[in-house]
């Protein structure tokens, strides 16, 4: 078993989930509570990776982050590194790709929170941030957990984006799903089979307790 790849995949999934929690929660809360114009457009943008082929996203990330591009040069000036072929590069692709898998369940969970409770909190003098932290978040918690599990599991299985921007470097960008692809091409079916079985068991274990797709 390629434990370096297993560790890398777990690391990528954990980092992706953590980042999505930080940016996804406020975004989802905004989507669930706002009545402003533009909400539909943002919602569509967030959902885009659901239908976009991962290769399209990978292609854009690669083009947008290569040295010589504006974001690529900016990143190089700030950090001294380059995004393609780095862990940060596949992390960026992974966060973008998993946006809907986290934000949509988050937003659905917030939308299910009784609006009267939120308004009551405001009337009792709590600020928007306090209301978010002390009323909306605890009530929406099961849905948020579901979104986190989904984003985590989906990152473990991610392939196309990582293939496009990763470059298959052991310990840096060769995740488990890339390692399986390499193994199959190198006709090492034993190694591919082991890793594939591990992923099947993992997916089952993750989805079994997940509220996703179950009637509420």
């Amino acid at each position, binding site marked *: 078993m390629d434990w370096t790849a297993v560790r890398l995949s777990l690391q990528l999934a954990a980092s992706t989930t953590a980042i999505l929690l930080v940016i996804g929660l406020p975004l989802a809360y905004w989507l669930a509570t706002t009545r402003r114009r533009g909400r539909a457009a943002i919602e569509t943008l967030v959902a885009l990776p659901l239908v976009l082929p991962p290769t399209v996203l990978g292609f854009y990330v690669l083009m947008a982050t290569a040295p010589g591009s504006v974001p690529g040069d900016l990143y190089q000036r700030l950090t001294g590194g380059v995004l393609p072929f780095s862990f940060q590069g596949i992390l960026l692709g992974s966060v973008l790709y998993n946006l809907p898998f986290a934000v949509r369940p988050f937003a659905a969970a917030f939308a299910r929170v009784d609006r009267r409770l939120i308004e009551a909190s405001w009337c009792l003098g709590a600020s928007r941030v306090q209301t978010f932290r002390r009323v909306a978040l605890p009530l929406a918690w099961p849905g948020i957990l579901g979104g986190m599990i989904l984003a985590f599991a989906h990152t473990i299985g991610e392939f196309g984006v990582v293939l496009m921007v990763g470059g298959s470097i052991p310990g840096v960008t060769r995740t488990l799903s890339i390692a399986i692809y390499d193994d199959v091409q190198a*006709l090492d079916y034993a190694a591919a089979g082991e890793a594939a079985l591990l992923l099947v068991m993992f997916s089952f274990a993750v989805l079994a307790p997940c509220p996703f797709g179950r009637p509420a």
Partner: protein
Amino acid sequence: MSIAAASDLKFALDDIVLAFERQHPDISVGVTYGASGMFFAQLLSRAPFDLFLSADVEYPRKLVEQGQAEKTTEFLYAIGHLVVWVPQSSPLDVDALGIRTVIDPAVRRVAIANPRHAPYGRAAEAALKSLKVYDAVQDRLVFGESVAQAAQFVSSAAADAGIIALSLALSPPLRDTGRFWRVPADAHPPLEQGGVILSWARDRAAAEEVRRFMTGAAGRAILERYGFTLER
């Protein structure tokens, strides 16, 4: 009829197919490009191709050994060559530096095809070793799943230099956008590129016609334009 072709043949084979179809309007040829190793794995499961053009003679040979193709249909169609390629905008003088381009301090990432399953990747790795720069370059290597992806990595400037197929360096998209240095042929085992007609070919006659055209004068002329020779 359908062909599974090594990705270094993209462009050269496109031209060959065009010329072939002009001569044989009754035969339509579809080509799928990819890594030879991937096709080999798929062909072991009887992927529905008629003709397999590998970047390596080993894969067709193994298909014959395992009874997926007949010995008589195996053929050698070209010897491939390697180049060190840098984008036009690169400050590196690839002509003067030669193989030392890849160990220049300005180079962070060097793209090659994955040596585990791509013949061009194996040749690139062998050349880096025999030219004694492998240890210095090892940490900079990034791997494309085929030599075409390695070329794409460097042409998009995501990698600073690449060791790719001469045939790709001479292709229209790369010809004017970069500079290259030819890796000496004796620095790596020869990239003997072979093909084979699969035993389950639906249109055997058409597959044989394509093979004859490709190894004939017209096909050879096109292959040579893309740097494929028959001698080392």
